[in-house]
């Protein structure tokens, strides 16, 4: 029989039969590994899916476009398409007009209506990866029939419609019925928005969206114009073409590469993805820790058997292989168990992540789940590697069992100098973590910070030996004052803890990690909530919010109609309120998206307030109100390393801005950051005074909420209210708060898992310690010690371990919370919160932890009292 098979044969007889004897423990570890692997692969798949949803979705929307003509935050005159097409190097130029619209009588459904010159679009997409795929007959139908569109299959199925039916979409002027000329197949463009897309001719969409006939004059407007140059041009030629085209463009437009939006979107998501990846690895390490614990236990329990094998002439690699193999087998079985878990978990995780990205960052063009086979291979590979690594230390220890031990001879002692080495390396880790926390800003990545966190945990764990020894000594001295009260158990426990080996450090390390995570997350969430709520109340102030329907999804491209505007002014005046209209432009700069908002700054300073992080409100607000500066959000400033006095420069709707930053404020609007500019000052520079949103305040009212509700009802009932979203301030603030609360749900899960795993680690460590001191404990029994005294000894050990873990964990946790707030959040989202600790909440956790440690000691007590004391006599 070839060697590997013989080994396998022996392995199964040696390990599997032993596992049968402790099936509960083995099953628990398998479950832990399964959960870890499932979460790992599930989160990774979800990350992949969201990335692909973003990139593929945007690719499908862009088709083959190389470049795009954008309106610097505004719209683009569609007529320049003709000018662009006269250049021989332009293969196709397509004006695009898109809106996310609600469907009549279907409050949950929105559809992306896309209007383009379909003939030019066919030319642009032909031969690419997302061709238009519409027959010429259907295409001409769309050109001829004024209110016709193609509906994506996703929407058709959801609404129960097919070709020939009518779908009513709600536009800025109210509902409009469209005939469904045909269904879009679920390929190419038909996959965008998961099929909740409709394609129509640009003429139809322009007519639908037009506020009045001026909007349609002279070719009307488009969101952008997609350009495809002749294929086969090299970069130099393309540069020449761009240089030729740019001067021909009107003042308020510019030319950009087509994938710029996708790239900036990915940049925005990168930190979130990094954090998710970390969570996925953490869950895998949980499984690793469990394998480590179990293999440690087994290796310790069977050290004698290993010695026998060695005495019989078995080579050193044999026990190494047996226990590494045990680790690998646990991994394999855990992976098998992970499959059903992953099938359940992955879609949920993907859903949650997709929705979070959609809520917090940017609209995902589709939210399907793509499963990449290589990810599964990655999960299997990583789990196996991690499992073998986890089993390495105990296997190595087992392999060191000398054949002499079969003669019941004790092994050589290790020198005490090892403890000093451990403490020293721990301090090195802690010191090494500091520069890592300073790196993220420079490298634009969170990985240095996460490595620093890891070093923080390791460094803290490595302080365990001396802290444990010191705690044990102190405890011994304190309880020694009243020996009768405390019994002999505590002294023995303290003595043995003073010489605790690295395995104990690792278990305490797990405890420290768990508690530190709990403390840090608790502090972070509390700090966030406190700061966030203040921000919501002050900066997101307002009793009623009115915008065109789906304004945010449509990036505020539409305005509130004049009639609606008039009505709002009149009604507000009648109710004694105040209006604060605003405009918002969605822009890109330095590789990130951001928003530019104009509103009356002096009015705002009485109706609400900013939370200033840098800059003096007393001087900044008046300056901004005069148009002599802009107030920027922390996110925007952090991402670009901008400070007070630095200049904000951009071209917006043809208006060149070059103005200093006078204030940096806290802002938790997530989509890249905001620049606040005064309304009047922008108009004076040539800005368009149209209302893209308006906040309404009732400062004089006795009951502002009632006044808001009245206003809302009146507007909803009035024709002017059609095509508008009207929300009360209370509802809006609750919605925003809910979104953020939801995203912390996953951190609560993490905290729970961490605590559970730490409990398992402590339980296992205590069990291993019992096994290693079998002789000692049995001797105590043989000398007349009672079961209660043995139990007390073990509980004291657990208690001291728990206390040390708690103290180190709390210290580590407080440091970690600062890192979370000032480094990780800052780098990941660009914002910070005011550090705020809820001591009561933390205080409640510590007794809980001690109780958990004591509970974890119970299995060890059972183990210690299992054998009759006579066993002690059998061995010397």
């Amino acid at each position: 029989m070839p060697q590997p098979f013989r080994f396998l044969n022996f392995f199964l007889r040696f390990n599997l039969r032993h596992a049968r004897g402790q099936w509960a423990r083995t099953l628990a570890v398998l479950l832990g590994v399964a959960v870890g692997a499932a979460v790992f692969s599930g989160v990774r798949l979800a990350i992949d899916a969201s990335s692909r949803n973003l990139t593929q979705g945007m690719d499908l929307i862009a088709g083959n476009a190389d470049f795009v003509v954008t309106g610097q935050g505004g719209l683009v005159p569609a007529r320049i398409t003709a000018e662009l097409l006269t250049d021989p190097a332009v293969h196709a130029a397509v004006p695009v007009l898109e809106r996310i619209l609600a469907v009549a009588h279907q409050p949950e459904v929105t559809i992306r209506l896309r209007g383009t010159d379909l003939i030019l679009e066919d030319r642009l997409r032909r031969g690419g990866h997302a061709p238009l795929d519409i027959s010429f007959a259907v295409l001409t139908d769309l050109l001829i029939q004024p209110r016709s569109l193609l509906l994506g299959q996703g929407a058709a199925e959801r609404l129960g419609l097919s070709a020939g039916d009518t779908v009513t979409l709600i536009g800025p002027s109210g509902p409009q019925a469209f005939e469904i000329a045909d269904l879009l197949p679920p390929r190419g463009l038909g996959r965008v928005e998961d099929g909740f897309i409709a394609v129509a001719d640009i003429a139809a969409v322009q007519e639908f969206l037009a506020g009045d006939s001026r909007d349609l004059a002279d070719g009307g407007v488009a969101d952008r114009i997609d350009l495809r140059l002749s294929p086969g041009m090299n970069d130099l030629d393309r540069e020449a073409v761009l240089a030729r085209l740019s001067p021909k463009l009107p003042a308020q437009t510019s030319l950009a590469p087509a994938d710029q939006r996708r790239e900036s979107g990915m940049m925005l998501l990168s930190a979130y993805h990094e954090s998710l990846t970390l969570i996925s690895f953490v869950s895998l390490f949980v499984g690793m820790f469990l394998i480590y614990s179990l293999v440690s236990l087994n290796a310790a329990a069977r050290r004698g058997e290993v010695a026998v094998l060695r005495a019989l002439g078995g080579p050193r690699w044999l026990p190494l292989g047996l226990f590494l193999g045990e680790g690998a087998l646990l991994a394999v079985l855990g992976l098998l168990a992970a499959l059903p878990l992953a099938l359940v978990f992955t879609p949920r995780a993907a859903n949650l992540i997709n929705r979070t990205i959609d809520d917090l960052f940017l609209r995902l063009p589709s939210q399907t789940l793509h499963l990449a086979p290589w990810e599964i291979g990655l999960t299997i590979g990583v789990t196996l590697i991690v499992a073998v690594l986890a089993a390495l230390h105990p296997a190595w220890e087992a392999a060191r069992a000398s054949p002499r031990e079969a003669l019941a001879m004790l092994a050589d002692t290790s020198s005490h100098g090892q403890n000093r080495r451990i403490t020293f390396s721990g301090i090195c880790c802690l010191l090494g973590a500091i520069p890592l926390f300073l790196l993220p800003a420079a490298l634009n990545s969170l990985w240095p910070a996460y490595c620093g966190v890891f070093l923080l945990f390791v460094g803290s764990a490595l302080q365990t030996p001396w802290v444990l020894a010191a705690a044990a000594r102190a405890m011994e001295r304190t309880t020694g004052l009243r020996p009768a009260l405390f019994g002999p158990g505590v002294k023995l426990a303290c003595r043995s803890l003073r010489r605790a080996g690295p395995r104990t450090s690792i278990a305490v390390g797990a405890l420290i990690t768990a508690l530190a995570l709990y403390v840090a997350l608790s502090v972070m969430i509390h700090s966030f909530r406190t700061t966030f709520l203040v921000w919501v109340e002050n900066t997101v102030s307002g009793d009623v919010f009115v915008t065109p329907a789906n304004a945010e999804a449509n990036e505020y491209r539409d305005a509130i109609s004049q009639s609606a505007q008039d009505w709002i002014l009149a009604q507000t005046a009648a109710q004694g309120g105040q209006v604060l209209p605003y405009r918002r432009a969605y822009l890109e700069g330095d590789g990130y998206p951001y928003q530019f908002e104009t509103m009356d700054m002096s009015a705002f300073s009485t109706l609400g307030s900013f939370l200033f992080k840098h800059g003096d409100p007393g001087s900044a607000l008046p300056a901004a109100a005069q148009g002599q500066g802009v107030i920027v959000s922390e996110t925007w400033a952090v991402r670009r390393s901008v400070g007070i006095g630095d200049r904000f420069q951009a071209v917006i709707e043809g208006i060149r801005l070059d103005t200093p930053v006078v204030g940096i404020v806290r802002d938790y609007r997530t989509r890249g950051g905001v620049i606040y500019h005064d309304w009047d000052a922008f108009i004076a520079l040539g800005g368009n005074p149209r209302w893209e949103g308006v906040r309404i305040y009732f400062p004089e009212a006795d009951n502002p909420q009632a006044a808001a509700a009245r206003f809302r009802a009146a507007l909803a009932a009035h024709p002017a209210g059609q095509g508008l979203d009207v929300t009360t301030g209370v509802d809006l603030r609750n919605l925003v708060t809910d979104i953020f609360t939801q995203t912390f749900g996953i951190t609560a899960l993490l905290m729970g898992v961490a605590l559970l795993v730490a409990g398992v680690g402590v339980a296992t460590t205590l069990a291993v310690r019992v096994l290693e001191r079998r002789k000692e404990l049995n001797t105590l029994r043989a000398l007349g010690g009672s079961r209660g005294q043995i139990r007390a000894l073990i509980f004291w050990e657990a208690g001291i371990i728990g206390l040390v873990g708690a103290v180190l964990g709390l210290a580590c946790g407080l440091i970690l919370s600062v890192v979370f707030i000032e480094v990780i959040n800052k780098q990941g989202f660009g914002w910070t919160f005011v550090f705020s600790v809820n001591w009561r909440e933390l205080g409640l956790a510590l007794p809980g932890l001690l109780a958990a440690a004591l509970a974890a000691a119970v299995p060890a007590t059972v183990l210690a009292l299992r054998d009759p004391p006579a066993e002690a006599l059998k061995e010397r």
Partner: protein
Amino acid sequence: MPSAPIAALKHVTRRYRVPNHGEGAVHAGVRDISANIPAGAFALLKGASGSGKTTLLSLIGGMDRPDSGSLHVAGTILESAADHELDSFRRRKVGFVFQTFNLLPTLSVLENAVLPAILDRRTEARAKDHARNLLTWLGLEHRLHHTPDQLSGGEMQRTAIARALLNDPPLILADEPTGNLDSRSAALVIDLLLALVTDQGRTVIMATHSDQADAVASLVLRLHDGELCGDACPNLSDS
């Protein structure tokens, strides 16, 4: 009759520290042992606990290395042998019988007996036949598929003897083989060991503190505090 020594020790020294729970360490081991054990002998290593007989046995059995001195056993130079040479030595040249039997609890009697062949990478099937024969000779033919927890002390020790004989080693080392047995099983085991010498021509070196085997031994080495003391050993009784 004169025969070449199967084990030749010259100034063998092995000292080490053993932790003594809480109060530092004590020294143990052997010092400057020189002795020749002829092939075919039934040798006893006698001494009180802590006298170093277990250490000496472990050195002769290739389970430990001397700090100094030379050890030639069964044609192998132990003090300078590489790790894998020692492993091979233990597999083929030595058969060990332990005081605490040291059977693997998850293997059956037959599987325990066959273990040395598995470790030596030999075909299990043939070794199983040989093991069956040995176990039958040892009176365990009805216990082949039982696990150690189902056996009595004597049965466990006989399994261990079968295991020690499986690879046909010239040298059998026994560390207090009767220490955990009742007197009847103990006598049986001593008889078996003697038979290995007289009937099979092997050499047996047995570490013991009892006098039970004195009558049948052809050589007795006495140890005290890690040194050979010959006839000048103090009168010792272990309790």
